[in-house]
């Protein structure tokens, strides 16, 4: 069913081949010089992707910055580490288990998940808790389409996302900066919100490993760390999950972690952000500019308390 390891194209070769393709297509030589392909090229995930009314028309962050500046501590705490080490992540075979408070748990293969729903392009703002932001053209579909594969029990109130743990491929997990595996969580209504995206790709192609291949979520009104990467398990639970960051620094990271310029991180302000590629800082917007869609989820809640 899966190619033997020897048949898998090494990522460097794959990348070079892509470069070559791009250059040769640019020169109009593709048909003339390309030998018959010796491996099945991955289908371009972005082909035929639907545009989304949720997309922003702001200038998109270049791919090299999205891949070259990423927090994925399983590969190291430097933002350059994922680009250096994440190619070691084994993304096939890959399954996602939906379990916990559900009528019947299921384990789905990534190839099945890729075909669960039509792929959409969603150009979202991403605001990191560290004070920088990007605009990223994600590919995927609403997380709800995946969650609907199981029937939650009445007492399921939250969903927990558990990132895969591959100690032999993840040099960062040798250090105890966070509790592994990485755990994040959402309230069930947040997880089912149409803005919450199950991400399978970006910039027209499959997700790069350092950005959470083969699947992650994007919750654009929350700080970036809420959007769990390389998800292996989705668990329906009754109690509010304690995320890895909440365990590491409970005073600094709350369960909700909605983008909020009025609630500073205990050690720095959240009023402004630097959009990657820009020199001047811009004002951070409540809910990262998605308040119109999501503010009602939190009506009646004191967002200073539920930070």
């Amino acid at each position: 069913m899966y190619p033997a390891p020897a048949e898998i194209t090494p990522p460097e070769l794959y990348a070079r081949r892509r470069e070559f393709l791009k250059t040769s297509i640019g020169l109009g030589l593709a048909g003339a010089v390309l030998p018959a392909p010796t491996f099945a090229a991955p289908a371009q995930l972005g082909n035929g992707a639907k545009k989304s009314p949720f997309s922003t028309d702001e200038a998109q962050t270049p791919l090299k910055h999205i891949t070259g500046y990423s927090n994925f501590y399983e590969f190291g705490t430097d933002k350059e580490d994922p680009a250096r080490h994440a190619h070691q992540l084994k993304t096939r075979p890959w399954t996602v288990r939906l379990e916990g408070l559900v009528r019947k748990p299921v384990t789905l293969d990534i190839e099945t998940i890729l075909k669960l729903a039509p792929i959409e392009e969603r150009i979202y703002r991403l605001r990191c808790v560290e004070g920088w932001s990007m605009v990223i053209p994600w590919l995927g579909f609403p997380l709800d389409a995946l969650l609907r594969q199981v029937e939650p029990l009445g007492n399921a109130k939250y969903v927990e996302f558990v990132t895969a743990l591959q100690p032999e491929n993840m040099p960062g997990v040798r250090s105890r900066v966070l509790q592994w595996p990485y755990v994040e969580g959402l309230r069930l209504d947040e997880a089912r919100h149409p803005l919450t995206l199950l991400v399978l790709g970006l910039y027209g192609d499959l997700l790069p490993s350092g950005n959470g291949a083969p699947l992650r979520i994007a919750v654009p009104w929350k700080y970036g760390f809420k959007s769990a990467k390389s998800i292996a398990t989705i668990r329906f639970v009754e109690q509010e999950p304690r995320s890895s960051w909440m365990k590491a620094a409970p005073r600094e990271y709350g369960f909700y972690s909605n983008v909020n310029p009025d609630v500073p991180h205990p050690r720095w302000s959240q009023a402004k952000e630097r959009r990657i590629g820009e020199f001047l800082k811009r004002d951070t917007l409540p809910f990262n500019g998605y308040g119109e869609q999501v503010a009602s989820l939190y009506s009646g809640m004191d967002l200073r308390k539920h930070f």
Partner: protein
Amino acid sequence: MPIAPLKTLVFVLALLPLAYYGWGAWHDTLGANPVEAVTRGMGTWTLNLLLITLAITPLRELTGWHAALRLRRMLGLFTFFYAALHLTSYLWFDQFFAWGEIARDILERPFITVGMAAFVLLVPLAATSSNFAIRRLGGRRWQALHRTVYAIGILAVLHYSWLVKADQSQPLLYGGILVVLLGLRAWWREVERREQLAGKYQPKIRNRIIPIQPRD
């Protein structure tokens, strides 16, 4: 090695980090967030040079290489130089001189409070680095003043430690080196104190006021 060419060498070496970041900023090779890279780079080199400066005295004690002392003033001034660049990049690129915000940062954010305190304490040291200032103050007072560098070292490591999000490995490394550098001094002082109490006190060079060196 004669001291004059060594001083020139150290001078050039100490400018290399600035050249690296200047070149990188100009040619856009500092990654996705060049502003942050510059601010952090200047901070890192402030700490590096501070620890190198603090290593001079133990180095002389342990190796007997007294000429090393003649590099210390320049290293200290480069520490101040990078600290000033670090502070400038914060005031400019992070805050764009919004003084109200800066004041709030200093009051409310402990890592900025201690960073700013460290810089403020560095200013009089840089200002009294000339031979003239040493003469004016008198060696003993000058030396007492310049001992604040120990506090500056502690504040600088705290500043680093309190700003990192989760990974304390680098701040711990700097902290460990600082503990060794300050611990050696404390230990030697303690040994001297005991010798004094036992009446075996022999003045050593490290215990005297630093003699003023005429310029080469």
